[in-house]
């Protein structure tokens, strides 16, 4: 007595289809019951259970049970209306293409192509299927392109922290250039103190920073993009205000408006080293974190300041622009 039930369901697991998983369930006395997994058994119908094969739906059933490869075969053959040319374009031999098209027609359940000994023509059903068949192929191409562009750094989102003073030097030219060359990247700009930028970098809240150096961190790497001289900021009625330049030592007796060290510690230390090199330690009258506040306090006569040039660019550096 045959012990294994009809297994015809398994025969459609052909090439071009995702592998089909089969679950064998026990079949006894004409009814299905919950089963354990096992192999087919044989023996007397009264004592030995028979086994029935149940096929689990392939995962790509949501695409009508069709694979991208099958759709590609169909579209190329529809465009070439010639098996040999289509097979050549697909890089396969003609027999596998013919078999694949027959399997596709079996899967869809209609005839898609009229074949004669010399020509191929789409049936009405084939013509109806052609445009919808092209869409998932185009989508797959776009998906692959998107992945490649993201991997190449050509698309995605980038959050950039920047120091306010960078707005008056390299930042505008850099952002303009980057946007022109990477139009698919969405940039978010966040003005922050240098300390906040470095903390947010380490917390992955921003991706990259344009910050005041030097950068002293084992986790971070800083690439110097420009070096800028300090400038004296004086009230307009100051005795030195009419000069083009003054030695820093000339400001030794002044009260200074400075930014707090925690805003940009290493930058602050560079500034203090410049004061020491000039032979004095500055008397700090006021502190302010933002450069425009510092300039305002200087204008109000509350002291002098040493800043990077906030009004006319970075030491005259000519940042290249692109047409």
């Amino acid at each position: 007595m045959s012990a294994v039930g009809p297994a015809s369901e398994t025969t459609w697991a052909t090439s071009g289809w995702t592998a089909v998983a089969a679950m064998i369930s026990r079949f006894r006395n004409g009814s299905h019951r919950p089963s354990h997994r096992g192999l087919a058994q044989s023996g007397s119908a009264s004592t030995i259970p028979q086994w029935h094969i149940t096929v689990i739906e392939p995962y790509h059933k949501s695409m009508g049970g069709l694979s991208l490869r099958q759709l590609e075969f169909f579209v190329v053959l529809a465009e070439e209306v010639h098996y040999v040319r289509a097979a050549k374009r697909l890089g396969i031999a003609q027999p596998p293409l013919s078999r694949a098209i027959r399997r596709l027609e079996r899967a869809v359940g209609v005839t898609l192509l009229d074949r004669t000994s010399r020509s191929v023509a789409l049936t009405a059903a084939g013509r109806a299927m052609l445009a919808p068949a092209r869409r998932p192929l185009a989508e797959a191409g776009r998906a692959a392109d998107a992945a490649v562009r993201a991997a190449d750094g050509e698309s995605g989102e980038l959050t950039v922290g920047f120091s306010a003073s960078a707005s008056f030097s390299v930042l505008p030219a850099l952002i303009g250039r980057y946007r022109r060359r990477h139009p698919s990247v969405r940039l978010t700009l966040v003005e922050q103190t240098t300390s906040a930028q470095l903390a947010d970098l380490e917390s992955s809240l921003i991706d990259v920073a344009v910050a005041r150096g030097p950068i002293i961190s084992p986790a971070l790497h800083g690439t110097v993009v420009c070096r800028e001289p300090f400038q004296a900021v004086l009230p307009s009625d100051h005795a030195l205000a009419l000069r083009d330049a003054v030695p820093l030592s000339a400001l030794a007796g002044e009260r200074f408006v400075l930014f707090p060290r925690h805003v940009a510690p290493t930058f602050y230390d560079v500034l203090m080293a410049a004061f020491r090199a000039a032979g004095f330690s500055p008397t700090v009258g006021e502190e302010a974190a933002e450069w425009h506040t510092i300039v305002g306090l200087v204008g109000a006569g509350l002291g002098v300041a040493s800043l990077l040039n906030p009004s006319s660019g970075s030491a005259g550096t000519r940042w290249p622009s692109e047409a």
Partner: protein
Amino acid sequence: MAELCVVHFRHHPSPLVAGFVREATQLAAEARATDEVVEDQI
């Protein structure tokens, strides 16, 4: 002199970050070259 730096994680910058840093360093190099040409002319 004060430095302005483009800063990122030391290891394995993402392609997006690497692209931004590359643009910044190229721009800086072009700016230096322009400055040098102008200084030579002066």
